[in-house]
C-alpha cells in the first residue's frame, strides 16, 4: 500500500501516465487539462519516461498523431477538454473504428458558446456515440486508478477499443486531495507489455489501415465494434477485480451507497457524488430511505446491471451535468430511464440538469431533489419530469 500523497487530479493523472510510460503522447493544451500534459512533458524532459512527445498544432492533429502512432504499434495516450475534444471529433471515430486502444484523459468542461472553462459533462457526453469506452471519476484517486485500468481494458484482445477517462474540470483537476499512488513497478506489472494487433512497423506482415469500406463490409465492421463494447463489460469487471487485489480499492460499473434498503435514490456521475453522499447521510438520520448510485462506466452502458440495482426503488432522480437540447432529457436520464422500462413495476424516474459551466451543486439543491422524490414516493405522481436545478428563474 502506497503512502498518501497530496496532488491535484491533473498531477495524479500525469503521474499515472509517468508510471504507464506510453510509447507516444501527442497533445495540444486546453484548460483545464493543460496541466496533465505540462507535467508529463516535464517527465519527458527529465528522462523519467521513454515517451515520444508530439506537440501538435491542434487537437485534431493530436488525435491524428495518436492514431498513427497506435496503428504503428505503440501504446498511446493523450489528454484534452471541452472544445479540444470537440475538435478531435472526426478522429475519435477513426480511433475506435480502426480499433486502436488509445487512452485519453478528458478533463470534463463545458462547451462554448458562451465561452466557459469550468466543469460539466457536455464534452464527454457529446462523444458518447464515438465508440470509445467512457469511465467517469469522482475524485483524483479515481482518476488515477481509472486511467491505469483503462490501459488494461482497452488493450485486451476481446476489446481493442480506445478509452476516455473523465474527471470534472477544476473541481477535481485543480483541487489538491490525498490519494495513494501505486509503486512504479506495480503499475508496470499491472499493465503488462503491450502487444499490438496489426502494427504497421512489423514489416514482415504489411497491413493496410483505413481502406475504403463500402456497402459490402462497413456494416460488419460496425457490428464488430458493437460486439467489442459488449465484451468490454466482463473485461472491465475483471480488471477492476485485479486492481482491487493490488490496491484494495474496489470498482465496478457503478458504486452504490445506502441503496439496498432505499426506496428512493439519486443517480449521478463524477464529483457531485461526494455532495450527494453527505446529504443522503443527513436525510438517513431523519429516517428518509434514500440512497445513491454513482455511475462509473457510461460506455458500455451497464443496462442489465442497473436494472438489478435500481428495480426495487419507488423513485429515482437522475442527475445530468449536461443538457441534450430538445431530447427527452439529459443523456444519462434518457438511457437510465430506458433501462428501467422493462421492469414491472419500475421506479418513477425524474431528471435534473445541474451544474452547467461549473455551477456549484450545493447541499440545498440535493435536499430539494430528495424532497421531490419523497413527494413522488407519497403521491405516485411526477410533477416535473425535467427540472433545471441550479438555474435562476
Amino acid at each position, binding site marked *: 500500500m502506497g503512502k498518501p500523497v497530496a496532488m491535484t487530479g491533473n498531477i495524479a493523472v500525469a503521474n499515472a501516465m509517468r508510471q504507464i510510460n506510453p510509447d507516444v503522447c501527442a497533445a495540444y493544451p486546453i484548460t483545464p487539462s493543460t496541466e496533465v500534459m505540462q507535467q508529463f512533458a516535464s517527465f519527458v524532459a527529465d528522462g523519467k519516461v521513454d515517451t515520444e512527445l508530439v506537440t501538435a498544432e491542434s487537437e485534431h492533429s493530436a488525435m491524428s498523431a495518436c492514431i498513427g502512432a497506435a496503428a504503428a504499434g505503440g501504446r498511446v495516450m493523450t489528454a484534452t477538454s471541452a472544445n479540444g475534444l470537440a475538435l478531435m471529433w472526426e478522429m475519435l471515430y477513426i480511433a475506435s473504428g*480502426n480499433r486502436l486502444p488509445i487512452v485519453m484523459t478528458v478533463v470534463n468542461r463545458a462547451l462554448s458558446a458562451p465561452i466557459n472553462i469550468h466543469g460539466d459533462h457536455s464534452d464527454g457526453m457529446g462523444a458518447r456515440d464515438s465508440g470509445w469506452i467512457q469511465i467517469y471519476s469522482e475524485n483524483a484517486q479515481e482518476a488515477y486508478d481509472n486511467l491505469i485500468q483503462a490501459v488494461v481494458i482497452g488493450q485486451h484482445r476481446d476489446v481493442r477499443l480506445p478509452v476516455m477517462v473523465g474527471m470534472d474540470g477544476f473541481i477535481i483537476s485543480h483541487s489538491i486531495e490525498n490519494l495513494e499512488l501505486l509503486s512504479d513497478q506495480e503499475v508496470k506489472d499491472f499493465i503488462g507489455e503491450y502487444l499490438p494487433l*496489426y502494427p504497421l512497423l512489423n514489416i514482415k506482415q504489411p497491413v493496410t489501415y483505413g481502406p475504403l469500406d463500402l456497402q459490402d463490409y462497413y456494416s460488419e465492421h460496425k457490428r464488430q465494434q458493437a460486439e467489442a463494447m459488449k465484451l468490454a463489460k466482463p473485461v472491465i469487471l475483471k480488471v477492476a477485480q485485479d486492481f482491487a487485489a493490488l490496491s484494495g480499492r474496489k470498482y465496478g460499473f457503478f458504486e452504490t451507497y445506502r441503496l439496498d434498503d432505499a426506496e428512493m435514490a439519486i443517480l449521478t456521475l463524477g464529483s457531485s457524488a461526494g455532495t450527494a453522499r453527505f446529504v443522503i447521510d443527513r436525510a438517513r438520520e431523519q429516517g428518509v430511505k434514500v440512497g445513491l448510485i454513482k455511475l462509473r462506466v457510461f460506455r458500455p452502458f451497464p443496462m442489465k446491471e442497473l436494472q438489478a440495482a435500481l428495480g426495487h426503488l419507488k423513485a429515482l432522480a437522475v442527475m445530468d451535468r449536461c443538457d441534450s437540447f430538445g431530447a427527452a432529457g439529459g443523456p444519462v436520464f434518457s438511457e437510465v430511464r430506458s433501462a428501467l422500462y422493462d421492469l414491472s413495476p419500475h421506479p418513477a424516474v425524474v431528471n435534473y440538469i445541474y451544474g452547467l459551466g461549473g455551477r456549484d451543486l450545493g447541499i440545498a439543491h440535493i435536499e430539494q431533489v430528495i424532497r421531490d422524490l419523497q413527494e413522488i414516493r407519497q403521491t405516485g405522481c411526477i410533477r416535473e419530469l425535467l427540472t433545471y436545478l441550479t438555474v435562476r428563474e
Partner: protein
Amino acid sequence: MSTNELKGWKEIPIGGVIVEAGNSARYETGGWRTFRPLMDGQLCKNCLFCWIYCPDSAIEVEDGKVKGINLRYCKGCGICARECPAKAIQMIEEAKVSAGE
C-alpha cells in the same frame, strides 16, 4: 465479387484492416472506366512511361515491351495517354468502343 463470397463479421479482421499484402489484384477496378485507352502499336516506342505512371499497374509489359493494357484494372484515368511522348495512346469513350464490339 458476388454476395455469397462475402464474409460475416466474425470472420474478418477487426478495424477494417487489410492484413495481407498484394490483395488489390482481387479488386477489379475496370468497371469504373468511362474512357478506354487505345494503343497504336506503330507509334509506341516502348519507353514504358505508361507503365511507370499507371496508378493501377494495368500496363502489361513483357521482355521490355508493352504487351497491352489490362482492362480488368484500367480505370480509364488517361494518365498514360497524357504522359505518352509518342502520342501512341488515345482515350475513346467506352460506350463507343463497346458499341463496336
